[in-house]
């Protein structure tokens, strides 16, 4: 392992993380809901009537956040290296996996760990491990 000090962004990452924590706190303190993106999206997609407008509005806020960002400053770098076959497979796995696993990086990784849920801590260890292993296999075994 070697650390990539050039691309390491400790302060903006910590500050961005704090904003994510603030958003999750606001959503639970005001709305009584977990800010889990896959759960909110899955619920909206299932046409659940419970809390539908709040869920849609949260997702809408997420969607328009880059437009607000872009109105004030330059957009951060966004680079997608994967080709379309990989994007399709990855998207399907993320969609099915987060619904079976009842959450993703936000719902389990941030909110679940914060409320010390054993299920969320287990889920986070599983998807982190699978993420590390997948990148290892692709970059260092297959060598793509």
């Amino acid at each position: 392992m070697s650390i990539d000090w050039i691309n390491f962004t400790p302060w903006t990452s910590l500050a961005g993380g704090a904003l994510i924590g603030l958003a999750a706190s606001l959503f639970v303190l005001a709305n009584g809901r977990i800010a889990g993106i896959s759960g909110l999206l899955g619920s909206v997609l299932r046409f659940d009537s419970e809390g539908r407008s709040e869920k849609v509005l949260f997702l809408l806020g997420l969607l328009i956040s880059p437009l607000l960002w872009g109105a004030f400053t330059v957009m951060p770098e966004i680079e997608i290296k994967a080709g379309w076959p990989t994007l399709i497979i990855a998207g399907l796995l993320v969609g099915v996996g987060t619904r079976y696993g009842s959450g993703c990086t936000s719902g389990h990784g941030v909110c679940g760990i914060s409320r010390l849920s054993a299920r969320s801590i287990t889920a986070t260890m599983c998807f982190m491990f699978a993420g590390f292993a997948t990148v290892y296999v692709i970059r260092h075994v297959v060598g793509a």
Partner: protein
Amino acid sequence: MIKLTAFFAGLIFGLGLLLAGMANPAKVLAFLDLAGAWDPSLALVMGGAIAVAIIPLNWARKNKQSLLGAPMQFPMKRELDSRLIGGSLLFGIGWGLAGICPGPALTILLTGHGQIIIFVLAMLAGMYLFNLLERSARPD
């Protein structure tokens, strides 16, 4: 009021992802590449988020109502079952393939990067597929 707070929570969440670098799939993959030139930044995203959220979420866990009087909607499940573990492993593989998880996927959807539309459509198809499988497994 709760509609306004929901909207602002989503907006702040997205701004946080953009500031943190988490909305950049290449940076996410650099974080997941432990054996390569490792960029540890995203560990600090999770650390920063948890540091801020831990007190509010634990307060919420012990209360039945939010500050605005909405009922607390917390997951009730406790058991560590195969669905949780299998689903999370599948999600992690997908995350490792493209460096994109659901929050960043929606956050960068309107930034004009064409490839993200393919990912989001596939993700929605995956969620829809889950709904179909659930419905056929448990007919109402």
